[in-house]
């Protein structure tokens, strides 16, 4: 899309673009190219020698049972966070959409967790679910349920999922509420004149009309679960116990930072890039966007 009337300076547009393009090249393209380059190299741990190995790093990564484990954890984690963050949000939005007293106050009290950093959300729930000092952690143990997320991998994963979803409900709530408010009242009135109950109206009229919002939120929540929950995991479990809460992102960090396996860390980065590109493509291909090119 082009404007009819434009300015015709020759140099100025380049000067205006320069800061952003410079940052983009230095901190985005160059590192991404480096990642791709390094993913084809084998380096000794001291960085003294390196040799070209083609796709060997990728083969090694994909054959590694730990990596397959991280894929499994990431899949369980992403699906659970998405469902747990979206279902309550839809329920709250459906309730807040009715003409009830105090709707604005409810809205304010339901959106603030968006502002809480993922790592801070983790700390809040750690303090609640800590097996020996947390209010609920102690209560569970007192009730005879052995609760210790430091030792039990499933409990650790459950806690990380819960803390991650808790923070994301607000975001989904806002978008569901906006979606619900854009549904024409006449459609709902027609359905109720036809004798449809509130529940029936919701599932046969409202929910289908909400599907663009729902689909959009599905993608956003998967992206959130993939990338923005690093802080939650690092603050709560550091990937443990064992590797039971190591997601793909967490593994790249551990492999590159602590284990210094640069080639395989880079190969993992490249795989993740492919995943992000796929997710972004889905987002733009199937979701009604207001961006025109």
């Amino acid at each position, binding site marked *: 899309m082009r*404007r009819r009337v*434009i*300015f015709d*300076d*020759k140099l*100025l*547009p380049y000067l*205006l*673009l320069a800061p*952003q*393009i410079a940052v*983009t090249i*230095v901190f*985005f393209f*160059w*590192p*991404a190219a480096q*990642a791709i380059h*390094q993913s084809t190299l084998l380096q000794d741990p001291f960085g003294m020698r390196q040799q070209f190995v083609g796709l060997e790093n990728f083969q090694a990564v994909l054959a590694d049972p730990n990596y397959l484990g991280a894929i499994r954890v990431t899949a369980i984690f992403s699906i659970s966070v998405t469902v747990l963050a979206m279902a*309550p949000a839809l329920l*709250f939005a459906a*309730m*807040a959409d009715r003409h009830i007293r105090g709707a604005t106050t*409810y809205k*304010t*009290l339901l*959106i*603030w967790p968006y*502002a809480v*950093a*993922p*790592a801070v959300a983790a*700390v*809040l729930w*750690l*303090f*609640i679910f*800590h097996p*020996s*000092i947390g*209010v609920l952690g102690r209560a569970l143990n007192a009730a005879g349920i052995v609760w210790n997320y430091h030792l039990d991998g499933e409990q650790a994963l459950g806690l990380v999922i819960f803390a991650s979803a808790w923070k994301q*409900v607000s975001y989904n709530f806002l*978008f569901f509420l906006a979606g619900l408010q854009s549904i024409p009242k006449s459609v*709902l*009135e027609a359905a*109720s*004149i036809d004798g449809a109950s509130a529940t029936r109206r919701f599932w046969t009229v409202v929910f289908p009309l909400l599907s663009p919002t729902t689909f959009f939120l599905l993608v956003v929540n998967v992206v959130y679960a993939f990338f923005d929950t690093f*802080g939650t995991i*690092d*603050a709560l479990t*550091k990937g443990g116990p064992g590797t039971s809460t190591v997601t793909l992102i967490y593994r*790249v*960090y551990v492999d590159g*930072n602590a284990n210094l396996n640069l080639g395989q*860390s880079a190969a993992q*980065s490249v795989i993740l*890039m492919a995943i*992000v590109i796929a997710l972004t493509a889905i987002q733009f291909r199937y979701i009604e966007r*207001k*961006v025109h090119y």
Partner: protein
Amino acid sequence: MASPRRSTDLLPHLVLVLGVAIFAFPIYFAVIGSTWDASTIGRGQMPLFPGPLAAENYWTVWSSGEGTRIRSTPVATLMFNSLVMALVICFGKIAISLLSAYAVVFFSFPLRMVFFWMIFVTLMLPVEVRIIPTYEVIVNLGMFDSFAGLTVPLIASATATLLFRQFFLTIPDELVEASKIDGAGPLRFFWDTVLPLSRTNIAALAVILFIYGWNQYLWPLLITKSRSMETIVIGITKMIGTGEVQNDWNLIMATTIFAMLPPVLVVVFMQRWFVKGLVDTEK
């Protein structure tokens, strides 16, 4: 509507009150925790009501950060670092995005679309997928453990540029023409017309970006080393360590409250801008 109102009025209130309670639940206990002493909490005997040490705990973390078991950076320093990081990222992003969107929309020049796509593609390269090589670039440029390293790499933003571009495309051609007839050059037009028209968008974006900058985790974790450069979110997780029972949990909770306060207040008091910003940036 035909359905009877009264009978269904109770259910939404019940559900929403439950939701509000689930959200507020951990905050309540964080506040309670910040008002007791470390050993009461460490014994697992924290009461369900506030204790007497609120002022003392908050003052300790704010001024010294030294408890009986941990030595942390004072919260005053941590908050200052977070504030600098959030504000520089916020206004840096807005500034460079405004300029590049203006160039792409109001000029015609060779490689225009190439530049546009270069900016667009960065959507697909979040920090998390290029951790190690980006870290190396920072070290080579001498930006490690500095405010420049913390902020500059995060100020490139496809989202903000796309948002401003969308908005600029809605500015009518007549306005540009009138301005040209009046003899205004491109910079004058930008300053006198485009910038004032963009005020609403800038405010909405600023709220979202402030929260984004304040809540950064992975990047400051990689880029800072000295304790005096830590942001408050990093400071808290360093205090926790591996989550032992014997820790200054009272101080950790006081720090947590401090860490949440600025972004939560921004959302609550600038709610209108916040909602607009959130919806805009995702379109």
